[in-house]
């Protein structure tokens, strides 16, 4: 099982990247983690450019999302919402809507901010956007407020309560991926051969 991590923050020392790394550690055995690092290269969405072949960074984004069994997003909060760069990438990924790579795919949302509220609005916004794409959005958010106090100098998440919430979130994500896979194999079993 492949879980893809996407950080909405591009910053080198991003707390959201650290949050994804903490989540990767909490994944159960059998699940592998990969972080998508190509967000910055995705150009601004322009329908005139939304043709085949897609711009290379967009093709890479779509292929990486399609290859993942589940996706965990970690987003900061910019002006009470999600960063434009993340929304832009999702807008590219959403096209065409009916065959987009996250349709029916289990996805989960967490987020860290330096403020008190832990990007909770951005997480709710992101959940809404992912729902519009047709993703199976796992219940719950994991707000990591006052992020500098939650990680140690090596970047490790040291807040045990948040670690517990994050563990619950990734377990629910993995369970949804397994349920989807079981559902697909059950369907395959009842379909006639060929």
């Amino acid at each position, binding site marked *: 099982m492949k879980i893809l991590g996407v950080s909405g923050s591009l910053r080198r020392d991003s707390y959201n990247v650290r949050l994804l790394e903490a989540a990767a550690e909490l994944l159960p055995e059998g699940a592998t983690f990969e972080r998508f690092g190509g967000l910055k290269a995705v150009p601004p969405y322009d329908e005139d450019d939304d043709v085949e072949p897609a711009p290379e960074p967009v093709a890479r984004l779509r292929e990486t999302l399609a290859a993942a069994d589940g996706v965990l997003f970690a987003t900061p909060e910019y002006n009470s919402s999600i960063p434009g760069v993340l929304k832009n990438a999702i807008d590219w990924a959403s096209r065409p809507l009916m065959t987009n790579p996250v349709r029916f795919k289990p996805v989960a949302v967490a987020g860290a901010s330096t403020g008190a509220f832990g990007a909770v609005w951005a997480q709710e916004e992101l959940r809404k956007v992912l*729902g519009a794409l047709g*993703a199976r959005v796992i219940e719950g958010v994991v707000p990591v407020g006052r992020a500098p106090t939650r990680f140690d100098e090596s970047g490790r998440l040291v807040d045990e309560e948040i670690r517990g919430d994050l563990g619950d979130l990734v377990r629910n994500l993995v369970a949804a991926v397994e349920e989807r896979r079981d559902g697909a194999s059950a369907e395959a079993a009842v379909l006639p051969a060929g």
Partner: protein
Amino acid sequence: MTTETITTVPVGTWNLDAVHSTVGFEVKYLVGTFRGQFRDVDGRLEVDESGRATLEGYARVASVDVKDEQLAGHLQTPDFFDAERFPELHFRAEGLDVTMGEVRAQGEITIKGVTKPVEISGTVTPPAPDAYGKQRVGAVLTATVNRHDFGVSWNAPVPGGDMALADDVTINAELFFTKAE
């Protein structure tokens, strides 16, 4: 001379004529009513010796028909019906009094994997022969459910604090049945 009036649906199995039947829904949306229907439906009416009937019906979520393809696609996702996990809607009512005229009964409806009791009401029309030598009956039934009871909870706030989509959804079924041979 007296004419015998048939006052109930004759005993036997009655299959849904899916081509002519309509199973749809309507829900208040912003300033009006939004309607859709399911193109792929199936059902059966079984009438026993006591004159009581069991009505069972299915609708394929993938066949939801609304005027916009994108919206039809969204209706199939986990925001609404979640067709991948729950490809069918199901309805069943037992002990239905199908004496001609008004019908009112308790049934069970399953939406998004959640089964809840629901009250249906409507009318049943008398049997009549069709042009192909078969007996037909018709039924017009309606039921109202709160979509949140079934986890169909998408909404959008509108300026002023209200929500765009109402909670109560009315399900309308105009059913044609043909007597099984």
